[in-house]
């Protein structure tokens, strides 16, 4: 173990520079969040991930955010274990009928102010699962969505861009 640790001391870090926040997302968010309340949370967000029925592809890329290349926590973004500790719900999947109530309850358990970020094409409108007897549809069919990050699944870079846009627009516009 010592060998490996020493090697890491002299090796340059693998972590990459931060991607720029997506301008279109920023503008969109600034507009939406401007109308919201004024209490500031500072430049950090606690995120609770909720899989509302995804194929687990989105979860793999959300997991990747924590690896040394993307190192999510340096942006003040961190995943928490309980919705009661969260500012943001990161919701994936078409919302299945079997998960609808769990998603609603999680949303209600999250204290205000809160944001919902829908992740992946399924989370927009159900994606390829739209129209199934077992699927409600996109996340916005169940809880209000503030930001949607597209992709099947979105790459960690796209996720990071979206989340950074959320942090920045929030500190510009003031959170709700």
């Amino acid at each position: 173990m010592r060998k490996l640790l020493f090697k890491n001391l002299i090796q340059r870090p693998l972590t990459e520079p931060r991607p720029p926040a997506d301008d279109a997302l920023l503008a969109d968010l600034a507009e939406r969040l401007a109308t919201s309340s004024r209490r500031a949370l500072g430049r950090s967000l606690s995120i609770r991930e909720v899989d509302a029925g995804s194929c687990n592809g989105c979860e793999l890329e959300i997991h990747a955010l924590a690896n040394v290349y993307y190192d999510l926590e340096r942006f003040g973004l961190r995943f928490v274990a309980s919705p009661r500790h969260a500012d943001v719900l990161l919701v994936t999947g078409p919302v299945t009928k079997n998960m609808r109530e769990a998603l609603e309850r999680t949303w209600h358990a999250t204290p205000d102010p809160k944001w919902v970020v829908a992740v992946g094409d399924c989370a927009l409108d159900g994606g390829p699962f739209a129209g199934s007897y077992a699927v409600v549809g996109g996340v916005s069919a169940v809880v209000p969505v503030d930001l949607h990050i597209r992709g099947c699944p979105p790459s960690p870079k796209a996720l990071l861009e979206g989340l950074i846009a959320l942090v920045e627009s929030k500190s510009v516009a003031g959170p709700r």
Partner: protein
Amino acid sequence: MSLQSELLESGTPAPQRPWPRAVVTKDAWRRCIRELAAGNATLLGYWSDGEAVHMALIEPEAAEPQPFTPFVVSLPCPDGRYPSVAGAHPPALRLERAIHDLHGLTPVGLPDARPWLDHGRWGRHPLGARQEAPADGLGYTFLPVEGPPMHEIAVGPVHAGIIEPGHFRFTASGETVVRLEQRLGFTHKGTESLMAGATVERAARLAGRVSGDSTVAYALAFAMAVESATGLEAPPRAVWLRAVMAELERLANHLGDIGAICNDAAFALLHAHCGALRERVLRAAAVSFGHRLMMDRVVPGGVACDLDDGGAAAISSLIADMRRHFPELVELYENTTSLQDRTVTTGTLDPGLARRYGAGGYVGRATGRTFDARRWPGYPPYPELAFEVPVRSEGDVDARVWIRIHEVYQSLALLEQCLARLPRGRVLSGKIVAGPGEGVSLVEGFRGDILAWVRVAGDGAIARCHLRDPSWFQWPLLEAVVEGNIVADFPLINKSFNCSYSGHDL
């Protein structure tokens, strides 16, 4: 005479490729149940098309070479009833409950009649004679527990980590788990109903989204089943490229799992290093095939994109990188006693149980089963490649980690062979999918063997499709191995199984 030839001779042959299928009588069905219960056959898959129930069976992994192919027996259920397999053979239990939920066919003698995938949210029997029903949810009675001093811990469906939804009900005596009961079905998306009547292209996209971590394996299983059903043939280069993608997928998942298991034992260093290696695999996949998880790249008739020189170079440098760094991590795993203390003798699976359930993947191979679908029944190009199927007998978390470690090396060797011998030519067959026909396939995903069965209609659309995730036969074993362990070891044991929720829930 083998069980297979007896059963097939007594029944009416049905058109299915490449494994034989026979429509059998109730007596022959009961014979199958007896053979399963006696351990003379292993249940490989169990599904319904609404009119009949079908069982895919293999005779046990006896001495190599395996003399028998898998085969399928079908029992028509004109009155909506059939003799329950689960009554005598528990591995069929959840599958039978699911068949009842979806199709409304009643297994007579089913020992546990609680709904499984149906949570009372979408009407009854959506794939059969659909009945409207109140959608406000069904209550679910967990198995009773008696005797003090016990307490229950309810976990999920929304878990504390970034994982899929499912419910675990623990009954514990102090720190020791007395029983774990799972309740799954939360991610049920009605994939089979969406596939019925879909075009082959749309169905292939759905197949690739049954379990995102196994998207290549699922797309491959589906493509091979469609190709068997319709006589479509993938060009040789495509066959080899499929193996490249499949091994990259296995590599990425095994690295993710090894790291995550260590992380659940609070050893973050290995998690960080394995995470970096996994990221490099995904980046190489993106360079080579245009998508980090290689979704929608394997299609019936071949593959959707070719590998250029830049892509091949990216994979070669990945292999070199892995060969340099991975052994250091293995050494670290092996020499960290505090980590070994958590993984060795934790969550030990009984070999008899693994055999009975036909547990695939690292769950089976860490417990003495030699089954690997790439080796047997085998599919191209694997019979032409040199690789070993690592097997251990301990059956604990440590053994499941070691199987993954060995398989990482095997996958690297397979990738090297594939790149060196990649044939030239086109990658997609020009032939149009035409039916009718029935095909079945078995593909080794990173988690275990995935079974795909497909019936293609005369117009080339998918009439029915069933995809069986390896998790169906692994989830129940997780319940068994947790017993007697402490609650704090559950995350570790669970991660060492890493069953798919979405793949199971469909």
